[in-house]
Every structure is written in C-alpha cells, then in structure tokens.
C-alpha cells in the first residue's frame, strides 16, 4: 500500500537538491544533542546505581561533562602503530559511523518528518546495520594486534548470528501490518495504546490469544538488539576485562571518538526501531489527544529514550556471556522461539483480514 509521505522540508523548499542535502544533515541536529545526553545519562545512571555521585564538578552537578569528554577526545594525540594496514585502519571508524548514521534516513520522528519515505524502510535499516560488522572486522584486522583480532572475529560471528532472530521478528510485524514501510506500520497502530503491536496490533477482543506471542517477539527483539550493538551482556567484542577493549584497543583520539559516537548512535537506532515496531512509534498513547506533529516527535523520542535507559540499566547489572554460550542462546533458544511466535502472529494476520 503506497502512502503519501508529507515532509515539511519539501513543503517549505520543494523537492530540489538543497532539500535533499538539508534532509541528510537534519538528523545530525538531533544526533549531536542526543549523544551528549546519552553520555551524561550513562555516567550519571551508572554512578547512581553504584551508590556514588558521578561527575559533579563540570557545570552544575556535572551536566557539562559530555562536552568535556568530547573536547578531551578531540585534542588527544592520534597514535597510529607503525605496522598497521593504513587504509583499513584509518577507514574503519568512519565506515562504522557511516553505517550507524545511514539508518537515520528512515527513522520517522513524526508524521510530517521522515527524511526518506521509501516503502522498504525496515529492510533498509536491517541491511545498513551490517556495515558495523565490516567496520569491526576492518578495525580488528588492521590493528596488527592479537587481542583486536580475537575481538573482531568474535564480533563478526556474534553480529551475523543475531541478525536472524531479528529478521524473523521484523517479518512477523511486517505480516501484521502488511507492509515494510515505517509510516504504514505506525499509522496502523493508531487509536490509543491498546492498538499497539505489543498488545497484538489493531483488533478487538479476538486478539487476546496472540498477545503472549507478540510479547515474546518483543523480548526476542530487545535481546537481539543488545547483541547487535555489542552491549553487555553481549559485549564480548570489546570485552573489557578479558581482551582489553578488543577491536578498538589501538585507536585513540578522533577515531576512538568515532567508534564511541557510533555506539551511542546505534543505541538510539535500535531503540527507535523497537518503538516503531512494537510501541506505536510517534502515536500518542491516548488516541487522538495530544497528537499534533510536535507532540508526536516528543512521544517518539521519549519512548526511544526509555529503551536507551533500559540498555544502560542492564549494562550495569549483568555479567557478560561467553562466546559459545552466546551462540547457544541465539541458535538454539531465540531462533526456534521466534519461529514459533512468527507462525502464531502470521496465523492471526491471515485470520483477521
């Protein structure tokens, strides 16, 4: 089903080159403040969980700390070991960030703003997140360091394996909504929080039997997304205590900042996708009340930030898994369960039409 995607930039300027360039740069306007807030959030929330105060001296109660961190990373000396493979070494962080940023092209911040409203939005995000794998392997191999190589190999196997349960989840939601287009999926979940895909999507009392399966899909996707962005309990590629920062051991200065930035950017993307798929995207939970364009972007960002908070919370609570246990979890646990849930959801989609 084709949808007319309104985009306030096109309304203002028209569909010309300047509009395209503006649309490519506009998410950066969101991403930079978000990264500062996310870094501050990670520092402060991890400190509060551990009963300490975190940064308190930079600015009022430490709110300028992320700025200080950025300045510190930018002014650090860029040390490149002599025996590295120079083209790969220099390109790896930027490929990683390119993969993380390219997905912003299809994130729907509100009903009037989506930078590129292609009708295979979900598939595009899924494909672009594979850039991360390439970048990690490039960085690990080019560093001429056995630890980095270990980290890169583990990362490659981890990220590729976890894409499969995620793909099955996306397929299930796509069958429910009938399209891969982001805005279509969101619009179908309109009308209050009971119509969200987490609770079975639109439908009457007959959808109660499918709610457990959508909740299972939600959990599977959340766990898979943690593995995609290499956070604890799946942060083996950068497994701090064992292989001392893994694939980004040898990076310093701006390139390390790029890896760092790409990780936080990735965190937002997977949180955004999970809100689009399961929590109704920019739909307000009260139906049509508070549903103007500005309110919509507020709802969207706050729902995504809840998931960013959950990722930070989980990071500081759980130990990390070993590589073979990680493989066991994805191939033997998440894959069969997601197949079963997909089958149930597809049945419901077929029956309810």
């Amino acid at each position, binding site marked *: 089903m084709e949808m007319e995607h309104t985009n306030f930039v096109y309304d203002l300027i028209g569909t010309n080159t300047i509009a395209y360039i503006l649309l490519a740069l506009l998410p950066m306007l969101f991403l930079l403040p978000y990264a500062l807030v996310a870094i501050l959030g990670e520092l402060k929330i991890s400190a*509060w*969980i551990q009963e*300490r*105060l975190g940064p308190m001296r930079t600015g009022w109660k430490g709110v300028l700390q992320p700025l200080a961190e950025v300045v510190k990373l930018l002014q650090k000396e860029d040390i490149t070991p002599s025996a590295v493979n120079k083209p790969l070494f220099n390109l790896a962080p930027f490929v990683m960030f390119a993969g993380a940023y390219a997905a912003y092209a299809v994130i729907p911040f509100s009903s009037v703003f989506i930078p590129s409203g292609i009708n295979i939005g979900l598939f595009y995000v899924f494909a672009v997140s594979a850039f991360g794998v390439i970048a990690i392997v490039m960085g690990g191999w080019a560093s001429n360091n056995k630890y980095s190589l270990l980290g890169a190999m583990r990362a490659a196997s981890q990220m590729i394996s976890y894409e499969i349960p995620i793909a099955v989840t996306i397929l299930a939601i796509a069958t429910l909504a009938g399209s891969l287009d982001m805005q279509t999926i969101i619009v179908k979940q309109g009308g209050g929080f009971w119509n969200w895909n987490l609770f079975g999507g639109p439908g009457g009392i007959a959808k109660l039997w499918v709610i457990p399966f959508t909740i299972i899909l939600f959990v599977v996707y959340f766990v898979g997304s943690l593995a995609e962005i290499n956070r604890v309990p799946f942060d083996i590629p950068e497994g701090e205590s064992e292989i001392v920062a893994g694939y980004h051991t040898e990076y310093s200065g701006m390139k390390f900042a790029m890896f760092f930035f790409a990780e936080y950017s990735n965190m937002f993307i997977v949180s955004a996708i999970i809100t689009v798929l399961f929590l109704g995207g920019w739909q307000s939970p009260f139906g049509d009340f508070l549903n103007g364009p500005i309110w919509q972007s507020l709802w969207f960002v706050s729902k995504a930030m809840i998931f960013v908070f959950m990722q930070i*919370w989980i990071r500081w609570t759980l130990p990390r898994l070993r590589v073979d246990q990680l493989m066991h979890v994805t191939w033997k646990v998440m894959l069969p369960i997601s197949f079963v849930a997909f089958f149930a959801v597809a049945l419901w989609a077929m029956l309810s039409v």
Partner: protein
Amino acid sequence: MKYFKDIWTSLYTIFVGLKITGFHLFEKKVTMQYPDLVHPIKDNLIPLNSRNRIEVDMNRCDGCGSCARACPVNCIEVDLVKVTPGDDIPLFYDGKPRKTWVTKYNLDFAKCCFCSLCIEACPTQANRMTQEFEYAEYDRNNLLYMMSPLTPEEAEVKKKMWADYSAAKKKADAEAKAAAEAKAAAEAKANEADKQ
C-alpha cells in the same frame, strides 16, 4: 524440559538483579565531596592516631639517633655535635641548657613506610604523627625534609668550635698530666732523699 527451565531461571534471575540495582538508583549515595562539602580533618573523619606526615619538634630533639636506628627503611639521618662550654646555649624543653647541637636531621619522606617505629623509639617524644595528608610536591627533592635548626655554615662553625675546644682540652689535659707526673716524680725523689 531442562531447556524451558533454563530459560525461565535466566529471565527470573535477570529480573531479580534488575530490581536490586533499580532500588539502588534511589538510595542515599555514599560519596563525600571533598573539598567542596567535606574536609576530612576539619570534620573529624581522620582518627587522631592516623599515620600521615611526621612532625618533629626540634626543641625537644637532642640528636640521639634512636629514630634513625629504629627505621626499617633507613630514611632518617641524624648527626650531632657536643655543645662547647662558653657558647651561647639555648634552653632545652625541660628548662636546662642543651648538651648537644643537632647538626643534621634529614627525613626522606619519599622512603618513609609509615610504620611509626620512630615515634615509639624517641626518648624525648620529639616527633609525632599528624593528621595532615595533603603534602604532595611537584619535585621529589622537596620531600627530603631537612629539619636541623642550624644552617650548614653554622653547623660547620659549631663543629669547629667543638673540635678546637676538645683539642685544646686534650692538650691541657696532657700537659696537666705531664705536670702531675713530673710533680709526683719530684715528690717521690724528695721523699727518698728525706729517708736517706
């Protein structure tokens, strides 16, 4: 069945862990913000017998060197010279005049191991452990505390005075002894002459 039981225990223990850390998010924090809100010495957070910087009261020190002998890492060097009579002597802590000048008292704080054996060894209780913990220096040589009350030139002067005095005394003693021997010999001779 073990398969499903494992999945259930995993999710359950993860939620228990999350609940514990979630509660800790809102509990009182234990950080003491130094130096803005809390200063350990003024707020009595450091006990009185805590082992930090050593302070030596040079008025009470007589240079005996017990602390240097007691130190396990040899960080104290003490040197003394006796007071020449007739010199301008300051008073000791117990009101009596000093018997010795302490010409050298070097405490190398870079080597000190904070065992407080030197405090136990001092017979006049000249040194003590203070609570002061902020004594870091930029240059390692500044950690060598040279606490002698005499400057090196004055120390040389005092040493020379004592050396001269003891040399003169020795000479006078030797002369007196020779004179006494000569007198005794003369008396013995006179006695013998008397007897005969």
